[in-house]
């Protein structure tokens, strides 16, 4: 309404001739546009990354006690430990020395070279070994489930909004919000107990059969899949509701928008209106949360992995934290943060693709 908004448009293209030049001015080379878009994003990306890296450095050091103390406390449970023991442990673990500043420099170097050295808890394994061992399971399990949950939830949400007020609306929304109120670990425990121990339908722990060694044979993959069912189910049950509600609410809003009314006035097929018009616009805001969720995947779902003894990142992280395993913790935190950042970044790009408005 205010003229400054309208300013770049100039006066409406009354004559065809009048439109084209202004339009030409309005659309610069796509390359340029993309560049600027990426540029801004990358800038923020880098800054946030640095801050995150630094926080990751500080956090573990805020915790009282040293890694050696953690190790000792474990030994101390099996009888007293001699002075020499502590010395030996510290020698084995290579507990950090020097002042914070020098540690920070060393750490930054590690970050750049992506070499986080030896884990304290799992000495003498390197952080790299551990992470690369755990990552695939988390990625596949949690990643896959997150995507499934998002897709499924969104579809149900669309249905609920479109069939507003019918059972197709009330059932998914109510059940969804109830399920999403379940504590993760609780759902996990119940599933574990009933499906695992009482009915003995599924294995109760691990990512694959006890005797198997990871490889890409069909048997192994099948086995792994079989072991993944319960954890996957847990995550699905508890995260589905959120997606349903999110999509339902945004879509109900878009259903009230004028372009939907106009589409009706033009007698478009209900399908088209529901999907191409209402849903298509409603999904955009949900993408952002999906981005965060995707990023969070790498963090695994600590509680679930904990309950199912699933050898993923979450389990690793928990061990790292309780054992003051600085190197491991830092690597994991960095990984998680970066992946969240990257996921957001990608979603932003995707947004640009899906929503022409952001391209302008």
């Amino acid at each position, binding site marked *: 309404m205010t003229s400054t908004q309208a300013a770049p448009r100039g006066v409406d293209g009354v004559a065809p001739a009048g439109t084209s030049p202004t339009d030409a001015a309005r659309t610069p080379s796509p390359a340029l546009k993309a560049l600027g878009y990426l540029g801004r994003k990358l800038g923020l990306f880098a800054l946030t990354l640095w801050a995150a890296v630094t926080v990751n450095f500080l956090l573990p050091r805020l915790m*009282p006690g040293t890694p050696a103390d953690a190790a000792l406390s474990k030994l101390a449970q099996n009888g*007293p430990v001699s002075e020499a023991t502590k010395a030996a442990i510290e020698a084995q673990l290579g507990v950090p020395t020097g002042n914070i500043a020098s540690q920070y420099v060393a750490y930054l170097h590690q970050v750049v070279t992506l070499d986080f050295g030896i884990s304290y808890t*799992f000495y003498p394994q390197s952080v790299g070994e551990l992470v690369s061992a755990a990552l695939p399971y988390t990625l596949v399990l949690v990643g896959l489930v997150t995507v499934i949950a998002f897709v499924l939830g969104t579809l149900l949400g669309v249905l609920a909004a479109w069939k507003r007020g019918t059972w197709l609306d009330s059932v998914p929304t109510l059940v969804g919000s109830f399920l999403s109120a379940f504590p993760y670990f609780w759902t996990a425990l119940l599933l574990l107990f009933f499906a695992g*121990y009482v009915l003995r339908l599924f294995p*109760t722990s691990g990512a694959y*059969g006890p005797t198997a060694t990871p490889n890409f044979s069909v048997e192994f993959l099948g086995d792994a899949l079989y072991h993944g069912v319960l954890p996957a189910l847990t995550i699905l049950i508890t995260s589905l509701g959120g997606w349903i509600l999110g999509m339902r609410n945004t879509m109900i809003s878009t259903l009230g928008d004028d372009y939907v009314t106009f589409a009706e006035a033009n007698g478009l097929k209900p399908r088209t209106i529901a999907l191409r018009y209402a849903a298509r616009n409603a999904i955009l805001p949900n993408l952002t949360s999906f981005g965060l969720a995707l990023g969070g995947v790498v963090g695994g779902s600590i509680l679930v992995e904990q309950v199912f003894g699933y*050898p993923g990142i979450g389990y690793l992280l928990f*061990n790292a934290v309780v054992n003051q395993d600085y190197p491991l913790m830092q690597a994991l935190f960095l990984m998680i943060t970066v992946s969240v950042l990257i996921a957001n970044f990608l979603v932003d790009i995707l947004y640009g693709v899906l929503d022409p408005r952001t391209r302008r």
Partner: protein
Amino acid sequence: MMQPTRSRPRSPLRSRPLARIRAALALAVAASTLAACSIQIQSAPDPSIPDDTMLVAADNGSPLFEKNFNPFMINKRVAAFYMYEPLIVLDNLNAQEHPWLATGYTQPDPSTILFDIRQGVTWSDGEDFTAEDVGFTFQLLKDNPSLDLQGIWSYIDTFETGDDTVTVHLSAPDVPAAQLIASTTLIVPEHIWADVEDPTTWRNPDPVGTGPYTLGNFAPQQYTVDKNQDYWQADTVAAEHLILPATNTQLDVATKGYDWAYSFISDVEGAWVGAGNQNTYWFPPGGTIALFPNLTKAPYNDVNVRLGLSTALDRAAVGDAAAEGYMDPAGQTNILLPNQEDVLNPDIPDSGLISQNTAKALDYFAAAGYTQQGGKLVDASGAQLSLTITTAAGYNDWLKGVQEVQKQWGAVGVDVKVESPQPAAYTLALRNGEYDFAMGATGGTGNTFRDFNNLLSSEWVKPVGEEASNNFERFSDPAVDKLLAEFKVALDPAVQADLADHLQEVVYDQIPSISLYYGGSWGLFSDAKFTGWPSADDPYASPKTYESTPLLVLTSLKKVNDD
């Protein structure tokens, strides 16, 4: 469309709470009816596991196993203890020594140890085991201090090896050191380790040892060890294979037909024995759980306060709360009963057990200047006696015990707070002496001298803020140090026994630590495939699955159906 009648939102609160409560209770009842049909888990052993194979909950991956059989590392696989053997096996439960790779040792003087090395032992790769290997191992630990977890080189000065003997010269007269050196040093083969680039990081993927078992299949979630057919006492080893899974949750242990596990299961009768599979259990005391007073702080440095607190405790109740009634209250003597009865000082009234006696406790407190006023125990200035007990987060039996102590001391008017930081922080506080009272374990090393030395010797004492590795309460008494010094060099068992009696009196009278209850060793066994497990009737070894005592068990079992 909607009329804001301001009253309506609040109406559910107003309308007859009772009805709501009934509704809620109804809900609770619904839950309870569900709960009523309680489910008895039954053990269902995996039929694919043959009779000569034992399923053991000994080693926990977190959550995966790393193939590390270097016996000198903290994170070694537990089975390394079944592959590498010490010179003697010390059963810490009843302080008995079992000759092992050494047929025995003699101490001509308090600073010399002469080991007679067993003959006819071979390494699992066929090579002969010799005194040289022992010597090599000692040298290895000397050259790589970071591997010397028990710090034997803080005792050893020099050593030399004969054909079938190894002579160790200590840097100072120290009789008990012999036991430590002999029982904690796992001997490794020179012909393999000599070529190892850096033993401090070597993971020893294909272990070669003298022990009863050799490595079988290794997978990240489970590995097996197979019987070493030419083990030097092969005939005593019944189990052909041991299976060690990486995750042994209590549910697994109970449901999957484990033969041997070392873990506390609450309601063991119902959950473990009840699960069938001829399950049995034995929970002997493995150490004393005690409260360490901080003797550098007033008023805890006043023995009367400590006596008062100690007498105010109902140790049985504490033990019950902590270990659900499976552990006995501990005597104020720092020795494990019944296993170490022979060490017990007969003059100490009912074997050191101090029974709750509030009146007496109040007398002690009065002697320390504390009197009860309005249920509060206050000093002359009227300040209440208040203290904080530090325990470690996650050590739940301790926590339960502490809560019980809190109750009982609260009853006599002491204001007790509980702190439970993460283990690391707890350990730091304990070692630095930055606490009022701290939970901790004492004794149970299997060596009477060390049990008392760790608790009482001023050699450990460090100023507050510096890490002490023992004697966290910072007890220091020249007289006691003198006793310990004598003990250290005493070769004559009679003298040792006499000194032990004195030390028990010290603990009983001066309360350097307030013994609460015995920390259990939680042995779970199944007689389905193997029998001859250690038990109350036949307490020949600790039920532990780690360290060297399992060697005693593994060499004593019998197969059930020998075919």
